């Protein structure tokens, strides 16, 4: 069984209110390491067996159509062992 992971992030030029909120909250809690924070989402898709190139291509299409909003987001599909 393999896991296909899709990481979705807002495009860099798009405002990220959640990331900004986290970024503002960190120093209030005493964490001073962050210059900026951006928040995304991660999908973990389990499949039977090892993923084929065709399956990965299909996940790409699904990500484009459903998991990510390509108007404002980018995504990366990868296989996690």
């Amino acid at each position: 069984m393999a896991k296909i992971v899709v990481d979705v992030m807002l495009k860099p030029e798009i405002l990220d209110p959640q990331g900004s909120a986290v970024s503002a909250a960190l120093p209030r809690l005493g964490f001073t390491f962050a210059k900026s924070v951006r928040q995304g989402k991660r999908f973990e898709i389990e499949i039977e067996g090892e993923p084929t190139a065709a399956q990965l291509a299909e996940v790409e299409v699904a990500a484009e159509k459903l998991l990510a909003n390509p108007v404002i987001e980018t995504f990366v599909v990868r296989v996690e062992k």
Partner: protein
Amino acid sequence: MTLDTVTVAQSSPDQSQPFAELGLKPDEYARIKEILGRRPTSSELAMYSVMWSEHCSYKSSKVHLKQFGDKAVKTDALLVGIGENAGVVDVGQGYAVTFKIESHNHPSFIEPYQGAATGVGGIVRDILTMGARPIAVMDPLRFGPADAPDTRRVLPGIVAGVGGYGNCLGLANIGGEVVFDETYIGNPLVNALCVGVMKHSDIKLAKAAGAGNLVVLYGAKTGGDGIGGVSVLASETFDTTGSAKRPAVQVGDPFVEKVLIECSLEIFAEDLVIGIQDLGGAGLSCATSELASGGSGGMKVELDRVPLRDASLSPEEILMSESQERMCAIVEPSKIKRFLEICDKWDVTVTVIGEVTDGDRLEITWHGDLIVDVPPRTVAHDGPVYNRPLAKPEYVDRVNAEVINVPRPTTSDEIKATVLKLAAAPNLADKSWVTSQYDRYVQGNTIQSQPDDSGMVRIDEKTHLGVAIATDANANWSYLNPYEGAKLALAEAARNIATAGAKPLAVTNCLNFGSPEDPGVMWQFAESVRGLADGCLEMGLPVTGGNVSFYNQTGSVAILPTPVIGVLGVIDDVRTRTPMSFEEAGLDLYLLGETADDLAGSEWAYLHGQRGGQSPIADLQREMRLIDLLVAGRVNKVFTAAHDLSQGGLSASLTEMVLRHNVGADVTVENIGTALMSETPGRVIVAIDPSQTKTLGDLATKHQIVLTKLGTTGGDSLVINGANIPLTELRTAWTETFPKLFG
């Protein structure tokens, strides 16, 4: 990349510039060179291109919109007229109300949620900019066919966006419209209205007077949102530009806006600003040039001081960025300390970016180098004006000549089937699937909202003074006759606030049309504006402002001409309003107004695929008498309920009335085959206690309105000419449509 400064521009006059890509025509580019006496710098070109775009400059509509000034009604109620961010109306007791409606159509097609959300955010800032506290919003929406795949994509997103942003701000959503038509596929209309309240003394204007005063930018940081959004998105159709030119959409943050509202209101309360402007379309280009030309004209801005979310932005991009939740204020040096303190208290980013000068140039520098040096009026107000060719389209006479041929119910079974079919039609069905996603009662002052004829909010909790607002458009009639269509929409909106007993006071509008480069569309637009201006003059209602949205078309197919008219009225005591329906049996139902065979442009004809015929002719004198009757009847407590007849005619109005409180009615009408579905304007159903019969008769006689008894209330069915429609069955038909379509 080297910085294109004024000095560089002077020394390289022949350098080619991408004016066409920025949406400027060759003659417009030539005019900019003439104004400046040299080629513009790239920053200047960016500013002119966004400010001279259709969206900002109203270059195609200006010559027509002049009528709203020329035919203006002289009224003391209008405290601030057209031209400012929003008009301001006196509603008595020292209160003033400001309201305006704007479109956010194109962005909502590309990214439904964020497009609609930032539409709400933008109109709310316009109202705030006048010095008012925003209290409520309304959203007239139009979509392609209800069962079209793209409608299923855009409708849920747009509704969620309107709700998401407005709910976070704590603004009651008190009404609007949801309409479906084929022509809106690919061109959904998202119009957003906001109303705000202030005391007379609190009115703020967009001007930058007084040399030495500071230009202050506050609110969110500037990022790469919607760069060129205004000029590219609103000025050209998607087909011709292709996807590559699609700019980033703006993403809003309602919580930042909420803080900005409270921060701004505290700043206003301490009288710390000379002038103020929100940053909407065209961002800083618009705010600086409009503020400067509102004063003596001189302003210096250090652009590198603008706080950035993305440090890699170029000066051109900063000038064009449409990042949301930003405001620009003019502040006297003696007051800046307090201004900064208040921003600090609210945790709002604030930066002094420049100052007002005694010159007449807007000068913008980037790390000391002069990159913009222009007369601000030429950017903000002296844009190109087009007298575009207009021609009555060939379709008009053809469709006007068509004879409507639709089934006309006569038997009980046919009557029942007609009522159920109309009740379930997407345009007439229960809209609570949409409105239940909106907070309608936040702040606790909502008196009426969907499904009432108008939205009504209390503005003084002691005296119970309130305002009512309705928005209406009948695009089917506008298609058949744009002049009458605009007048009829005005009459309907006014009637919709009068049924509750509020007195109409002022008008705003959002004019949604196809491409102005099509002479037929331009004719529709010109006729609509003429109709609205004539109608407002006749009804004595001032137009306080509005918005024009062109290029709503896919290929050669334009949307139906859709002038959305908003009418605001005042009611001295909201507790005395006339509700839209009855809660008890034994009341008498009457029809005010006469019914003619007006099936052209009706929902019944539309359901049978027929769009032709002649639109009704507006009789505004009769509409005004009807409004006076409704207001007088409310004051004298004659009515138990009153409800407007519009789309879907008697059938739809009776459906809405009996289902409101689950109390049936038994009515009998003559000529049922017409009377059930005809949409003759100027009609209202009223319910009265039988003891009020004579008073109602006297009122009708006095105001010369035809009065016809329809029947009585009671029972658990709607009975029309003997056809019995159980309320349970009617409710199922009416409420099932939206959940079935949109889940």
